[in-house]
């Protein structure tokens, strides 16, 4: 038995459920589905006057990796605009070994997913949803 994927930090992120839930008055709501596995993310965001995220709420119907990613994203997205969120995406891509370079907290927690290609979309789904919400 080997538990390479579900390391403590990933499980802790998922259990933290940071940002889980709906927002009362979202500026935008987006839904993103992964047609291959059926994972679904609904994201509410509230923007400030400068196009930056003031508040974020997520509802994840998906696996632990998707929940952990949404939780990680919620922890660092507030105050970022589209360019700032794109940088988070690059950080996640680096953690997954899809781009070269160093990765940072919290997405560095997803480094164990680098060797599980079929699960990488689970990590990226919340980031995709947030990109949609800001576009």
């Amino acid at each position, binding site marked *: 038995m080997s538990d390479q994927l579900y390391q403590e930090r990933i499980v802790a992120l998922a259990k933290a459920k940071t940002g889980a839930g709906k927002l009362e008055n979202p500026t935008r709501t987006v839904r993103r589905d992964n047609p291959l596995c*059926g994972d679904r993310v609904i994201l509410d965001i509230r923007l400030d006057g400068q196009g930056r995220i003031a508040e974020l709420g997520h509802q994840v119907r998906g*696996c632990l*990796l998707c*929940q952990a990613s949404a939780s990680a994203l919620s922890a660092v997205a507030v105050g970022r605009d589209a360019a700032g969120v794109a940088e988070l995406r690059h950080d996640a891509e680096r953690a997954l070994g899809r781009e070269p370079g160093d990765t940072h907290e919290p997405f560095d927690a997803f480094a164990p997913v680098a060797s599980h290609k079929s*699960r990488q979309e*689970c990590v990226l789904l919340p980031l995709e949803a947030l990109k949609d919400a800001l576009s």
Partner: protein
Amino acid sequence: MSFDVAAVRGQFPILSEIIDGLPVHYLDNGASAQTPLAVMDAVRHYETTSRANVLRGVHRLAERATEAYENARARVASFLGVPTMEVVFTGGCTAAINLVAFSYGSLLKPGDRILLSEIEHHSNIVPWQLLRSRSGIELEMLPVTTDGRIDLSALPRFLTPKTKLVSLAHVSNVTGALLDVRAVVEAAKSVGAKVMIDGAQRAPHGPLDLPSLGIDFYAFAGHKAYGPNGIGVLWGRPELMEAMPPFMGGGSMIGRVTLAETTWAPSPRRFEAGTPAIGPAIGLGAACAWMQALDWAGAHDHEMALVQRLMDGLQKIEGTRLFGPASLQNRYPVVSFMLDGVHPHDVAQTLDSFGVAVRAGHHCAQPLMDRFDLDGTTRVSMAPYNDNSDIDALLAGVAHAAKTLR
């Protein structure tokens, strides 16, 4: 004599592999079964001694290839209990259903109805939705009972003289429930409707006697029935097949081609345009022969004992719920379950770390998941070569997921 599972396992080399230090506990047979040496040997024999195109050449390799290809058709026909020339080779089960949706579907008129069910695989839903958008036919769905069976008590409500076809899964790829085909046929015939059966999950569990079922079309996939990928089968009632236009045009399917018009070859050639998947067809023929040689009474008892062991073991793990028939009657060895608080993909990923292969998710049956408001299920699908060690490894993995992931 009891079923000799060790002897069966010995015919499947992959089952004795050690991968990353883990044994192979293969319980994803509903997605793709493993293939025995007899199938690999048949394909290798063709590729090394007979490789050529079929039905055209006069040289000896072409003669050998054609003979092997047509022998494969005869083996599949014997497995299904039908005449050889009623078997059409297709690219798979999906391709076979699409063939019927296109060719039989082209004979239907706007307002004609096709009856499916909520339990169907997307392969038995989407081709009919495409037909609906082309031709204006209407689709209706039989409901599913809470124990994961198609609710046949609803048949009289849905069948009308406008119903031209009923197309249902023989065995559910999610719940393992076996369809009472004769009841469907009896009801369908009372309004003049034809019956198509998607046999993808039934064919891997032993020979069939299609004439006794009274159906009109039957489809199954090679790779789920211990054969190669890229090959499937459609059987159709001859008078229907002869009335149907081709699905694809090309070589082999013609009677006579002029620049002005073309006439069609009779079935099965009419529906096998172009060079067929010769090696895979030969492999599927070998798989059917392999299945026909197996003791299926013993194999079925063995498979049901595994199902019982699995269900008993799951029920001892807190928070597991079975989705599907609770009994061993009228079912095949496909078992779906949920583990409260743990997503099915995380269950499956944990099982992989125990060397256990299962499928998790919606199983290409999203309408069924929606109907029961499920994120998905973890599905254990068995074959005669599975044994108690496979089930016990799975149960250990589920217990581990329950302990660590919630």
